[in-house]
């Protein structure tokens, strides 16, 4: 028979305190977002991009492989959601499954060509492939709608057989996106702390040594890319519902760059939560800073430059540093030589 402490220990392997805090914060958003002068759809956008950034970070933060073309897989997920609705069946689950699997399939094909690379060569190849997909999507008008995009993608109800939840309103879609976010967070957290996740983090630190320990580095990198694209495609599927369409712009280099900015500013290289923090910072900057000046992106870019120059570990690294200093002061021990930064599974 399992004892209560045993069950709690097992549960803590899946659900952690930072997760509960994050869920509490995002779960409270619908109750105050209108009061602070913002709007519920912003919450949907934040959650969708949190999922996108978390998926991207499997590759970037966990495995250390920089992709500057992930917007392509986000767009592929969005198109897959729309095309499934229009040509297969108008079913939410089928659409999301298609968004996930199609993006994963494209990712799998791309990864076959780039998994033996790393660093700048890997990054350049991801740009090349994303540009390829971008131009195919913009020119293949009969399938993707070209520059006009696929429009009239519906927000289908979340049908659980005995009960069905309509997602037509923004608050309803928010709750759905929140549920998806929670599931993705739990699964990716578990992935980061699994034997597989540990190998990815080891590859990020020292690919050669991992090979000399007998691991198939190529296959791990390939799987990391595929998983990352699957989560990204899933986010693209929800985004298509939110936007009511799938548009080629999200596949552009600019959008691929935005997710890199989000993850780096948040501290995705050192923390599991970096992508979430970075996404929130980005949207706060866009909507709050953007309310005062049209050049908000300039200020955001400056913030990014300062962060890279003085705190490349991002906001999460800043938080870790502050906690470390506070603890050091409390314990009256010198701060030097003590480091809490670690892999992204922390």
């Amino acid at each position: 028979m399992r004892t209560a402490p045993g069950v709690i220990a097992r549960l803590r392997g899946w659900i952690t305190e930072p997760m509960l805090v994050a869920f509490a914060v995002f779960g409270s958003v619908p109750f105050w977002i209108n009061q602070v002068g913002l709007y519920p759809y912003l919450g949907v956008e934040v959650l969708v991009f949190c999922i996108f950034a978390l998926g991207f970070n499997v590759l970037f933060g966990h495995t250390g492989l920089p992709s500057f073309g992930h917007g392509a897989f986000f767009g592929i997920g969005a198109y897959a959601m729309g095309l499934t609705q229009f040509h297969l069946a108008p079913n939410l689950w089928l659409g999301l499954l298609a968004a996930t699997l199609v993006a994963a399939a494209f990712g799998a094909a791309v990864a076959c060509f780039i998994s033996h690379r790393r660093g700048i060569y890997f990054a350049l190849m991801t740009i090349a492939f994303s540009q390829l997909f971008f131009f195919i999507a913009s020119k293949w008008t009969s399938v993707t709608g070209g520059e006009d995009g696929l429009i009239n993608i519906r927000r289908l109800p979340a049908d659980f057989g005995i009960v069905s939840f309509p997602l037509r309103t923004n608050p309803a879609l928010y709750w759905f996106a929140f549920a998806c976010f929670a599931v993705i967070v739990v699964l990716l957290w578990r992935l980061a702390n699994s034997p597989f996740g540990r190998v990815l983090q080891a590859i990020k630190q020292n690919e050669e040594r991992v090979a000399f320990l007998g691991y198939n580095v190529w296959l791990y990198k390939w799987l990391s890319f595929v998983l990352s694209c699957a989560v990204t495609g899933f986010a693209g599927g929800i985004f298509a519902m939110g936007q009511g369409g799938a548009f080629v712009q999200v596949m552009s280099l600019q959008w691929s760059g935005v997710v890199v900015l989000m993850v780096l500013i948040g501290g995705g290289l050192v923390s599991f939560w970096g992508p979430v923090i970075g996404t929130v910072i980005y949207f706060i900057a866009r909507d709050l800073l953007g309310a005062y000046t049209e050049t908000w992106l300039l200020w955001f870019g400056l913030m990014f430059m300062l962060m890279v120059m003085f705190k490349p570990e991002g906001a999460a690294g800043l938080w870790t540093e502050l906690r470390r200093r506070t603890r050091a002061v409390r314990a009256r021990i010198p701060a030097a030589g003590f480091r809490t930064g670690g892999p992204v599974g922390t």
Partner: protein
Amino acid sequence: MALLEAHRLHKRFGDRVVLETIDLAFEEGRLSGIIGPNGAGKTTCFHVLTGRYRPDGGRIMLDGRDITGLTPRAIARMGISRSFQLMNLFDDFSALENVALAVPERRRQGFHMLRDARQDSSVADKAAAVLARVGLAGKERELARNLSYGDRRALEICMALAAEPRILFLDEPTSGLGTEATARLADLVRRLKQEVTLVIIEHNMRFLFDLADTVAVIQWGQVIARGTPETLRADKWVKASNFGMLA
């Protein structure tokens, strides 16, 4: 038959011949040493034997099986493990996590995506036991980057050892160590010698000649002498190249 044999091994980088038809044999259960001056080709020889470089000629046989040109991964899986002259650790991992990655059981679980690696007591126990063997007990939770130089050297060896190898290659293990740390390493190597076939590249002749059963001397990409430490001390080539004096 030796456990690992290299026949007429040849390696060149562009015009520069680094290994010129080298023959080596490493007997099971023995400690074999390779010595030679800087640039003699010792480390290249290690890289070729462990799969980092593909030889341009010759054959490498492990227990009668041709492993020439196999990848480091394949060679590691066949039971050849190595440490590196320039330390090659996972600095953001704790000492325990570094070693756990090398444990074969963890390698077999490598594709498990939803299992909690932190609660895997079997792998952790094995890793902790290997850490204790090399004198790193109590430092399991220390980040590799925070360990002292000597402890990092020990961790390097520990990772190679945790892979449960049939043959363990150590590339200049005393490099950068002080007298005391070198003496501790010598004790460790003496213990390891009872458990695993060892091949060591060394600059420190005293260290190697005290421990090795046989030594091959590499100079200009060739084996210029081989034998027991005693016979090598009397060898005219070794004397001429100053190794004899150092030993």
